[in-house]
């Protein structure tokens, strides 16, 4: 009974939007002497939050036999990030939206490109995943703004999800952390389609033998696909996408970066006593002071 139901149900279509970002791993990241990122010397890779979004999509692949498509806006070299995300998610379809007209876009201008791009993916998309935010200064706005433009229900900080294919609804758990309050896990239910920005603490759980077998099968498939990722890759420029050129890139961006400056060094709030860390006698005195600090304040 179950299987006939399953077969008659239309398939789940998942999209992931990802971003190429500076690689912050040691050896690849380069900092200027003043502590700022040296972008020219730093390599690029699939952003870590994008990778988590790809893992969440792969969960849908394993659990619901979903079809996965990935989209990104970026320069031609961003195809590397698509390949990395394909390796994680076993995506069938890779979209790169690349045009000089898109350059300099803020989140609203980027969301417009992604909205149009997602509309060009095969099948009607049921769930879009995005990372929580980018690591290099993007703001976590692109996901929700894309969701809004698509008219999809937006679910933020999702830590786990399950889909009911029969009723086309999703149940998701969200992690809400607010200033000065204990964290809250909220469980919600919503009809598809939804747009999910995935929480950094998201983890996929494969509990049964059949799930683990499916996991292995699709992982193997993903490796083969990623080895030939160009077969799945479609590159769109502005014209091919058919975007309204006044809504993307700089013209479609309300905000601009006006200036970048060093944060001024705060004036010294304490006067440090400098001691030599190799001198046990001085270390002894420091520990005595630490002890004093702790005991003094307990008394109040």
């Amino acid at each position: 009974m179950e299987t006939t139901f399953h077969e008659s149900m239309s398939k789940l279509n998942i999209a992931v939007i990802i971003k190429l970002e500076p690689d912050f791993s040691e050896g690849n990241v380069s900092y200027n002497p003043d502590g700022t990122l040296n972008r020219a010397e730093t390599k690029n890779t699939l952003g870590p939050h994008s990778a988590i979004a790809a893992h969440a999509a792969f969960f849908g692949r394993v659990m619901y036999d979903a079809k996965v498509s990935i989209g990104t806006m970026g320069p031609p070299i961003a195809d590397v990030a698509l390949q990395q995300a394909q390796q994680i998610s076993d995506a069938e379809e890779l979209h790169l939206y690349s045009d000089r007209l898109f350059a300099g876009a803020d989140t609203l201008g980027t969301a417009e490109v992604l909205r149009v791009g997602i509309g060009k993916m095969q099948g009607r998309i049921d769930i879009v995943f995005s990372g929580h935010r980018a690591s290099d200064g993007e703001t976590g706005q692109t996901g929700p703004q894309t969701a809004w433009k698509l008219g999809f229900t937006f679910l933020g900080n999702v830590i786990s999800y399950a889909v009911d294919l029969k009723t086309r609804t999703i149940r998701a758990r969200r992690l809400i952390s607010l200033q000065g309050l204990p964290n809250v896990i909220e469980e919600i239910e919503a009809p598809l389609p939804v747009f999910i920005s995935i929480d950094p603490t998201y983890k996929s759980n494969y509990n049964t033998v059949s799930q683990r077998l499916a996991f292995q099968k699709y992982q193997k498939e993903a490796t083969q696909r990623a080895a030939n990722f160009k077969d799945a890759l479609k590159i769109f420029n502005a014209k091919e996408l058919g975007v309204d050129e006044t809504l993307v890139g700089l013209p479609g961006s309300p905000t601009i970066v006006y200036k970048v400056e060093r944060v001024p060094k705060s004036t010294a709030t304490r006067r440090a006593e400098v001691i030599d860390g190799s001198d046990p006698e001085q270390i002894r005195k420091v520990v005595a002071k630490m002890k004093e600090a702790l005991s003094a304040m307990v008394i109040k």
Partner: protein
Amino acid sequence: MAEKYRHLYVVIEHEDGKFLPVSLEMIGEARRLIDDFNSKYSSNEKVVAVILGHNIHDLSKQLIEYGADAVIYADNPELKDVRNTIHTKVISQIAQDTKSLSEIEPEYTQDVKRPRYMFFAADSIGRHLSSTTLAELESGLASDINKLVIEDIEMSHQQKTGGAKETYGKTLEMYRPDFSGFLWTTILCLDNRNPAFRRDYHPQSCSIIPGVFESLKQDSSRKGKIIEFTPTIDPQDLKVRVLSRHIIKSEVDFDTPRTIVSFGRGIKDDPEPNIKLIENLAKELDAEIGITLPISKKPYQISQALDSKYMIPDRVIGTSGHKTSAMLYVAAGVGGASQHIMGMKDSGFVVAINPDEEAPIKNECDVFIKGRMEDVVPLLIDEIKKQMQITEVQ
């Protein structure tokens, strides 16, 4: 000249009948900005608090006492829990409601269309709500801001002005620290005055980092207008059902410990053993372990167990993480980016371990132990064992 945009709207967050501190901090900063604005431009624009929820009339009134000139509130059972879609719709309705604008200032009824500026909190709720609201309003948003200035800005910009020199009056300069904490990016939201694609972009909006600005003392002598807004609620916008809410305890506790030991990129020469050293030090001091923001980007290959325990956003001390006022704060291999300093500067006694005497952390500590953490921490552990074991038993 008639102005289409006036006032600063602040979107308030509250939970269980209490304001989140950031809401009052935003009101405090808005008050300061608008007071300066009104004296600079001989104007009379207002700080307007916007609050949504259920049974919130009494709460609304308090916002006047915290510094708002007016409060617009929407009270409806469907607004009890924050759900992105319906909240976005109602906030957007309020931002475009000329009726409430005319109640705030009857003399401007004809001209004003929208708020000039808008503030949201940069937290789990406000970050997404601000994004969707500004997508709905089709205007600009800067996120995670920690400094605000209002200026007249003269500029020529190829896209914004078509290369012509233009003055953008009353522009909100929104300062955003980057991930390293060493750079400040100023973001502006500007109308397109380029004849090729003219478009108005208002309100100029941002989300504000909690804990940065000062709230004002509650003052019952402050007066202001309380305006009820009746939202239009479309059942289509109520598709999300909240099934349950559970409080969970974070594994990381920065509120109760007397001592915090933090580490930064100074662990880099030998990450895994150094993290274990920090663990030992923290154990001797009965301390919670904190990290700097760059560490949460997982820059080192270490064992999965240590990675998922320590290199996580939940442990970050700083503007984009936790603020602490621990009695004792030990910063090992921490450079001292301002974003980290903001999180730990209220600590009692601060000890820094760093080989570089030029590191900014030196200005923020009471004792600066010059040396590599690999060398210093073991000495510290030995000495603590000698001196502190007795106090442990009370």
